[in-house]
């Protein structure tokens, strides 16, 4: 029993990182209907920025985390401006290929300029294990869950309470109507990319600290899994991304626990196919009518 609880706990920790990534996918999909293939690579960049700030500039972990989020937000805005904005009127497939190109560029660019080897992520915070009965949890795991929850609450506040958040919801509901209401759509989309990229970067820095190593391809698999999480929760729905992230994290850890760790990635992809078959709008999704 306690080992199941322990696995659930580990799943929630992994899931928190997926949730942070899934939020970016779901917001971008909600607003411009694009699967942002480069999102997993922004997470990778975030981890590298964190590495740089801690290892080279010797900054405090939390300052490094905030700075990595800020720089990655900038990167996200630049990616949208250069690779997606010129294609706003093009067929959807062109934007997808462009997104794939960006992903490919970030992965291979990082490999080319900084080497494709794994790097040890600095142990900015000494690990301390806590025991609660038979459960054990480290301060780093608590930090991951805590940061994820704080960031999600922050995101909810931004989306629900600020003017920019209202603009985001408006553009995602009906872009043309939003323009007529005087909303600056381009600025809103840039803002969405900034927030999404910052969340991904936070996930990257946290996972770097947790697993102790980073490499240029670290974003590929988590990127796809986070997208599956977003679809599972209901793409375009912000609480759905968090729910989906945690579910995928738990599922993956449980698959490992029952001795099928070789198939843990396959199970996640299998889930995607099942959702598309059974409820394409996701757990929290509502069936909307398609407009002609």
């Amino acid at each position, binding site marked *: 029993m306690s080992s199941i609880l322990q696995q659930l706990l580990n799943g929630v920790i992994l899931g928190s990182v997926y949730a942070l990534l899934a939020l970016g996918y779901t917001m971008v999909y909600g607003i411009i209907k694009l699967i942002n293939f480069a999102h997993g690579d922004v997470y990778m960049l975030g981890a590298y920025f964190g590495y740089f700030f801690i290892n080279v500039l010797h900054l405090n972990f939390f300052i490094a985390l905030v700075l990595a989020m800020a720089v990655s937000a900038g990167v996200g805005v630049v990616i949208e401006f250069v690779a997606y904005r010129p294609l706003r009127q093009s067929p959807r497939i062109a934007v997808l290929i462009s997104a794939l190109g960006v992903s490919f*560029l970030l992965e291979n660019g990082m490999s080319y300029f900084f080497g494709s080897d794994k790097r040890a992520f600095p142990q900015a915070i000494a690990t301390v294990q806590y025991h609660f009965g038979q459960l054990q949890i480290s301060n780093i795991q608590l930090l991951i869950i805590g940061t994820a929850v704080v960031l999600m609450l922050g995101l909810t506040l931004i989306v629900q309470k600020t003017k920019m958040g209202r603009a985001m919801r408006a553009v995602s509901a009906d872009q043309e109507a939003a323009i007529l209401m005087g909303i600056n759509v381009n600025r809103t989309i840039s803002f969405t990319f900034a927030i999404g990229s910052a969340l991904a970067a936070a996930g990257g820095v946290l996972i770097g600290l947790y697993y102790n190593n980073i490499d240029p391809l670290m974003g590929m698999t988590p990127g796809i899994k986070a997208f*599956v999480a977003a679809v599972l929760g209901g793409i375009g729905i912000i609480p759905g991304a968090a729910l989906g992230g945690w579910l995928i994290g738990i599922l993956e850890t449980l698959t490992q626990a029952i001795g099928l760790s070789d198939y843990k990635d396959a199970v996640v992809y299998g889930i995607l196919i099942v959702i598309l078959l059974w409820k394409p709008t996701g757990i929290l999704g509502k069936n909307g009518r398609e407009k002609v």
Partner: protein
Amino acid sequence: MDRTHLKYTLSWAGLVVMLFVLIAVMTIFDVIGQYGMTTLVLIGINLIAAVGLNLVIGMSGQFSLGHAGFMAVGAYATALIASAIPNIGGFILSLVIGMSVSGVVALLVGIPTLRLRGDYLAIATLGVAEIIRIVIINLKITRGPAGIFGIPNFVNWQVIFGISVIVIALVVNFVRSTTGQAIIAVRDNEIAAASLGINTTKYKVIAFVIGAMLAALAGGLRASFIQSVSPQDYTFMQSITILIIVVLGGIGSMSGTVVTAIILGVLDVILQNFGPLRMVIYAVVLIVVMIFRPKGLLGTSELSLKKLLFDTGDSHDNHSKNA
């Protein structure tokens, strides 16, 4: 049909024969060497896979990212069956089985995902390709990450040349058939096509299944030619390689795919020394082409002999009369 059509078909056939003779002469006088010959065969194999992918992306407008997975199915089918029955019959059987399995997998993935509008197929195929690879790595019969060696070789450049020509001819004619036209109608306007009574899901699935079967064919030929298979040959990177051919050639242009497959195959040899930088260049090219030519370099237009040779006057390019 009429004489123009006959002349047109004959001139294509003539062109194909000329190309064949050209390569044969090059082999006899050993102009391109063993390495050149290998490159030529691999170009042909990529071409078959790319024609299949162009049918999915260009003709039906769906985005598949799992081409490598379907190639892996074909490659492993050939590796296992042709090794067990090492004669030409076994090889042909292995290609047929590989294509059938691949087609069934595509059907199972395509039916749920192609009912939906949007880009679900991209992610679903990406997932399926990974599932296929994970299964191959973990199964005993496929010998895990090391792969299978010593597969008998039944493939030479003549075989690849012949199969490429047949595949291209079949696919081009398929696109012009009623089914092919329905697929294009769905791509151009799904709502309009549906309102004309076209079962949109059915036609999207047909294109996807044929694409997957051609990928398996390419994979099987490749396995036999290289005489080994391993899961590392069929990663996401392989899907991207084929995708780049389709995108650069023109999404929806078969002649574009053929020309690009050849150019990229040759370029690959030249850029071999650049190693990882090659990938960076490809990535930048992919983005730049999409920004400036969102339909690929040739767009949907085809290089056409009809326009070059038999200008009937309805064409605007007057210079072709001089050709």
